[in-house]
């Protein structure tokens, strides 16, 4: 509204008519004043105009306008001659009579006000709207100490009354502006939440979610001291921080692992005050829990707000929403990474299994008069088990079994190199201990001394009916005679891969007789565990082998396997199970 409405003009004219004739000279300026004041929406401008007009007319050098803000709190919205910095300050006033002369002296008791005294206020005129006080015009003494006469006071009252409607309108505009701004802010908060929920869904990386979360905290609240902490397995760790890296802070946080609600440090209860002391010291003012299905998965620590204002209830609500939104994405990202990792491990194991299966002989060569069978059952983890039977000549066959420490692809690859060495050595083989020494040196070079291979190999000579062998730290194979006597094939030396060969390996030699059972195995058999955590044991294996003597090799194999399975029922196979059975014909 740029121009005053006609009706207001009329009301001004009416007001003028009601004035005593003595004041008629003031009518024109009054009309002008009313026009100016009513056309404006700016409270400060209106009140400033009222104040200056009155001060000019009455020759007063000091004056102020107080506007009611709360019950008895008034704000100094305009002031002249009272020193700088007074505008915007607040004054507490009890409701005062309609017009007060010399309020510093006249008002008694509780109404006696220091503010009036200190500013030497001589006249106080209420600003009325719908007959309730919305503010006061406060004036100091007149130049020349002239008192305010009755007509003077009447004129001042008229001027003030003329502006009351405008003041009220301006106050309304001010409130509307405030409401509008608060709505704007709310809208901004909602926009932030909406935007982040969209963005968080796109991001499957916890670090990036946390980064975006901190940007939004910085931007929306304007804090520059903060930390984001995640709770994992009952302990809390700081994942992003702009607080001091004092370890006391982290220790203090442990007490807030299951924070249920946003908590202002200044309102913390006594029980937790001790725990919170290092937080307070670090400048933390607010803690916001991050919840997933009612479980605290994280905590956000926040320092002072931009401009130093206190956190409002709305701030807490917004931050709590933001925190919960973020933690869901952080959790999702974590689960996604876990799944990826699991998938990667599984892929790796699949490769390891393929390598291992590729190393094992597809078919065993037939050894004249002998009956052979072998099996490898790889565990989920894939150990590094290996066995082999290689024909050297019509009467000579190399049998071998090995187990690499460690699991997965590295174990499988090491076994592959051992197999390659073995296959290369077999045609040239004449000295088994010397060849074992060379394999050991090769293994040492390949592993750097942190991976070992237990290894047993031997040459079956069908013409001489004998087995020559070297056992490099492997579970000693069983040789079970027809009469039930048992020989363990132990001779040899150190595990392969531990240290370079210094002492030559020893060679063992046994006679092979028709009806003998030769049983090679890995510790996956003897150390198979039952649900109570007990080992299968070599003793148990021995007694089983004794009981099945004379059966075909395949049956013996199946029999042992069945027993192991029965024994370890209800548990997960933790190591590869490898067996090689030779029935001497």
């Amino acid at each position, binding site marked *: 509204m740029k121009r005053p409405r006609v009706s207001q003009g009329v009301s001004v004219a009416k007001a003028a008519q009601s004035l005593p004739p003595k004041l008629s000279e003031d009518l024109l300026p009054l009309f002008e004043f009313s026009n100016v004041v009513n056309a404006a929406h700016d409270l400060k401008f209106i009140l400033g105009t009222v104040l200056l007009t009155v001060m000019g007319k009455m020759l007063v050098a000091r004056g102020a306008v107080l506007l009611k803000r709360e019950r008895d709190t008034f704000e100094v919205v305009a002031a002249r001659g009272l020193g700088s910095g007074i505008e915007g300050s607040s004054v507490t006033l009890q409701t005062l009579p309609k017009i007060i002369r010399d309020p510093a002296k006249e008002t008694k008791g509780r109404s006696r006000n220091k503010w009036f005294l200190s500013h030497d206020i001589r006249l106080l005129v209420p600003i009325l709207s719908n007959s309730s006080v919305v503010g006061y015009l406060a004036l100091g003494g007149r130049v020349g100490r002239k008192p305010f006469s009755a007509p003077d006071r009447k004129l001042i009252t008229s001027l003030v009354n003329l502006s009351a409607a405008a003041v009220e309108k301006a106050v309304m505009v001010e409130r509307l502006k405030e409401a509008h701004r608060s709505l704007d802010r709310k809208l901004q908060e909602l926009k932030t939440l909406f935007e982040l929920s969209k963005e968080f869904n796109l991001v499957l990386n916890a670090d990036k979610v946390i980064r975006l979360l901190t*940007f939004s905290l910085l931007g929306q609240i304007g804090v520059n001291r903060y930390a984001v902490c995640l709770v994992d397995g009952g302990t809390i760790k700081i994942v992003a921080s702009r607080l001091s890296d004092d370890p006391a802070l982290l220790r203090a946080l442990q007490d807030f692992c299951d924070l249920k609600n946003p908590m202002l440090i200044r309102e913390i209860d006594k029980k937790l005050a001790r725990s919170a002391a290092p937080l307070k010291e670090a400048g933390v003012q607010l803690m916001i829990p991050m919840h997933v299905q009612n479980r605290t998965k994280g905590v956000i620590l926040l320092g002072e707000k931009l401009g130093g204002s206190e956190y409002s209830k709305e701030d807490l609500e917004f931050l709590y929403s933001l925190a919960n939104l973020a933690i869901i994405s952080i959790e999702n990202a974590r689960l996604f990474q876990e799944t990826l990792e699991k998938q990667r491990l599984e892929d790796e194991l699949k490769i390891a299994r393929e390598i291992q299966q590729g190393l094992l002989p597809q078919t065993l060569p037939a050894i004249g008069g002998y009956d052979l069978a072998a099996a490898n059952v790889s565990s989920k983890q894939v150990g590094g088990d290996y066995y082999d039977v290689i024909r050297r000549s019509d009467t000579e066959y190399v049998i071998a079994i090995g187990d690499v420490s460690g699991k997965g692809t590295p174990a499988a690859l090491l076994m592959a190199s051992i197999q390659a060495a073995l296959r290369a050595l077999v045609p040239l083989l004449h000295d088994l201990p010397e060849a074992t020494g060379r394999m050991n040196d090769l293994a040492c070079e390949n592993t750097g001394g942190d991976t070992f291979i237990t290894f047993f190999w031997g040459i079956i000579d069908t013409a001489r009916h004998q087995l020559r062998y070297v056992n490099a730290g492997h579970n000693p194979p069983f040789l079970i005679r027809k009469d039930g006597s048992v020989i363990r094939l132990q001779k040899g030396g150190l595990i392969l891969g531990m240290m370079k060969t210094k002492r030559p390996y020893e060679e063992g030699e046994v006679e092979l007789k028709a009806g003998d059972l030769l049983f090679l195995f890995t510790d996956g058999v003897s150390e198979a565990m039952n649900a109570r955590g007990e080992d299968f044991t070599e003793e148990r294996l021995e007694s089983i082998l004794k009981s099945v003597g004379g059966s075909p090799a395949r049956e013996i194999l199946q029999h042992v396997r069945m027993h192991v399975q029965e024994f370890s029922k209800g548990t997960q196979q933790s190591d590869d199970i490898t067996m090689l059975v030779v029935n001497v014909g």
Partner: protein
Amino acid sequence: MSDFKVNHRDGEGFSVLELKGYLDAHTAPDLETTFQKLLTDKKYNIIVNCKDLTYISSAGLGVFMAYIEDVRKNRGDIKLTNMSPKVYNVFDLLGFPVLYEIYRDEHEAANKFRQQSKKG
């Protein structure tokens, strides 16, 4: 996807970042990268020209907050210019004008940097 671009050019004694498009949670990392580079290159007098910035969200403001301290610690500043009323409104709502100097145009901001360097 929202569109956002940062153009970086150097003036005499200051660097200018021209922002274009939507600065929100999605594009905030782009601005962050630019700030990181400026700090690595020890360019601490930064004018951010918002002439073509159509939208800024709190995540975008967060980037300014994240770097202002480092910049000022090195006796530099981030000064903002040519803000549209819409963008200014967001700044104002969140109380940022107390923290940042905002100028009508690059020229004013550049003058301010020059005065400060004379004093400093």
